[in-house]
């Protein structure tokens, strides 16, 4: 049984279709609800017009685009720096494990090189490092894959 108590749900579009149709009929015989509906419509129309009257600042979209591009470049730069640091770390570590053959000429110059410890941190945890076999014993290549889990997730979804 439809009644005035359904008015609020009717106004906000929260009545199921069948009850909504029943309330439409109820409006024909209930001046109070009819007036409430008109009042609600007036208020909604006024607020909507008021909100739409507020202008968007000129150039706003361009500023958003350039800010997103800037932030994207910064993130790519940080990632490139991380990869470079990882490569340096692997190279130094490899030099310690596989020192090059003694070079007499270098010995004569008496230059002592102490391998430095390089600490590498990856922003976020979704990074995978894969070692690439290299011909030279003093060189190691590492592929670093950022956000691997997201990529896997996306490819699974595509399938």
């Amino acid at each position: 049984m439809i009644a005035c108590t359904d008015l609020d749900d009717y106004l906000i579009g929260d009545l199921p279709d069948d009850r909504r149709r029943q309330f439409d009929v109820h409006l024909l015989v209930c001046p109070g609800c009819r007036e409430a509906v008109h009042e609600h419509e007036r208020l909604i129309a006024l607020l909507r017009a008021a909100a739409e009257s507020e202008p968007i600042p000129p150039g706003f979209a361009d500023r958003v685009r350039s800010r997103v591009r800037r932030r994207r470049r910064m993130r790519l730069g940080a990632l490139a720096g991380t990869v470079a640091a990882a490569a340096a770390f692997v190279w130094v570590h490899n030099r310690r494990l596989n020192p090059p053959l003694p070079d007499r000429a270098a010995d004569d110059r008496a230059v002592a090189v102490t391998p430095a410890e390089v600490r590498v941190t990856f922003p976020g945890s979704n990074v995978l490092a894969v070692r690439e076999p290299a011909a030279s014993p003093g060189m190691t290549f590492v592929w670093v894959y950022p956000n691997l889990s997201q990529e896997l997730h996306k490819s699974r979804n595509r399938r």
Partner: protein
Amino acid sequence: VSDRLEEWLPQVYRFARRLTADADAAEDLAQETLLRAWRHRSRLRDQGSARVWLFRIAANLWRDGLRRKRLPTAHAGPVDDVPDSPRPPERCAVGREDLARALAALDRLPPRQRDVLYLLACEGLSIAEIATVLRTSPAAAKASLSVARKKLREQLPDLDPEPDQPGQPR
């Protein structure tokens, strides 16, 4: 910015304007919202819910910012501070002053009531969507809406624009 996100820029800005009650802060919040959305765009499974998702990000960012900085909640500026309207809406036969008064009255409501009413009236969101944006229950959103409507009617007793399409509530 993804085109699908970018198409909601005006709506995000206007919602941010309500949250912050300040044009500069609104632009910052809207930019940060789009930036955050772009960064996490893979989480948006249903493009049809992009607008609700963006509003939710904006509301979360604003709420987190208030919590961190202990800023006062947004309040209405002077009524004559409302900027020029480039295109007066046709559906509502009221003047600029009345529109400014309506906005000022909306902004004077407590934040939760203001946001619920704004999202329903100006964005046409459903109660369930509003509850999602504001991280509340549909019942609580309905209660806030009921109080908000009552307060606004009291504050704007003499504003009486005629809608162009009667018989279609919402």
